[in-house]
């Protein structure tokens, strides 16, 4: 996918640059933009280091575990039939809490651990179970409470109040998550979560 975007955009800029007579600007961009990428990465590095450091403290202090207990009721509703004390449910709760804290690096391994457990329940089928779909949909939505990177880029661009977008962000991601859950529930149909032996002779 990315190889098409990367080469497509560059080919398109040649075509349009020639067509619109802007080749000087295109050529300039090709020379200077890569330096901008390094500047951007340096800007991001400080904030990423600060928040990873802080969140690592939160994790070590047991905040993730504490939060994850709060999600047991949510998991019970979204993953009906899955015992809340099962390893799958526990890994999912931890993953959700890590996502809320913006701990991307911790959330992914926890999420994969949860997927492995769900895969066992699904008898290693190549077809996703309802539980898996729901769980992945939750992870494709943003659960992060403090959008630190977004706020940093806003501050960097000279915003008078980089954090002012937060309430709007919460509502937008809340609506996004709810609609994802709703569509997943609507489309999951009557199929069970441990895979049925369809097509068996």
């Amino acid at each position: 996918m990315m190889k098409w975007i990367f080469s497509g955009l560059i080919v398109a800029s040649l075509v349009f640059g020639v067509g619109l007579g802007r080749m000087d600007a295109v050529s300039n961009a090709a020379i200077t933009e890569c330096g901008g990428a390094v500047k951007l990465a340096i800007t991001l590095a400080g904030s990423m280091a600060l928040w990873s450091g802080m969140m690592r403290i939160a994790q070590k202090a047991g905040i993730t575990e504490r939060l994850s207990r709060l999600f047991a009721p949510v998991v019970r509703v979204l993953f009906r039939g899955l015992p809340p004390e099962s390893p799958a449910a526990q890994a999912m709760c931890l993953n959700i809490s890590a996502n809320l804290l913006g701990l991307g690096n911790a959330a992914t391994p926890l999420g994969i651990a949860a997927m492995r457990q769900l895969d066992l329940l699904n008898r290693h089928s190549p077809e996703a179970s309802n539980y898996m779909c729901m769980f992945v949909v939750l992870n494709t939505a943003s659960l992060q409470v403090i959008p630190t990177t977004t706020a940093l880029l806003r501050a960097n661009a000279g915003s008078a109040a980089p954090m002012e977008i937060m309430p709007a962000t919460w509502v937008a991601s809340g609506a996004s998550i709810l609609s994802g859950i709703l569509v997943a529930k609507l489309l999951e149909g009557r199929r069970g979560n441990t895979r049925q032996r369809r097509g068996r002779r």
Partner: protein
Amino acid sequence: MSFNDLIIPLVLCGILIYGIYRGVDVFDVFLDGAKEGLGTAVNILPSLVALMTCVGMFKASGALDLLVRLFNPIAKYLLLPGEVVPLAILRPISGSGAMVIFNDILATYGPDSFIGRVASVMEGSSETTFYTIAVYYGAVKVSKTRHTLPASLTADLVGFVMSAVMVRLIFGT
């Protein structure tokens, strides 16, 4: 002083105090985590170089303006400003690509403009959908993802539309 100015110092204080209370060696643990965060920044640098170069060239050629104009009618229908459509398209596909476009929108229209705010809320309220699906299902070798993609993309679309709605409600146009 507003709530917005309080939140980050409060979170930092809260984590540190709770960490000390729970007997965590907060400084050493911080250094560990911070090192990992720096690693993340270094890891995304190569894709930032690739994407800033191609997006920058695309923009300089005038093609981005044409694309925005092309999508304007559809965007209007979804209550979105046309200028954020490239961000909406790239957001589910590439995290660093979206970051590059987002940064460019902030530089072009200003972070406190209507377009800048809508882009900020979009960027802050969404995730790299395709990447997440690939990583999670890839880990367990599931190839039939069933309704995952339709549900995730609906969630993204609703999030984008709500971003514009909320910015209009809170800040006006």
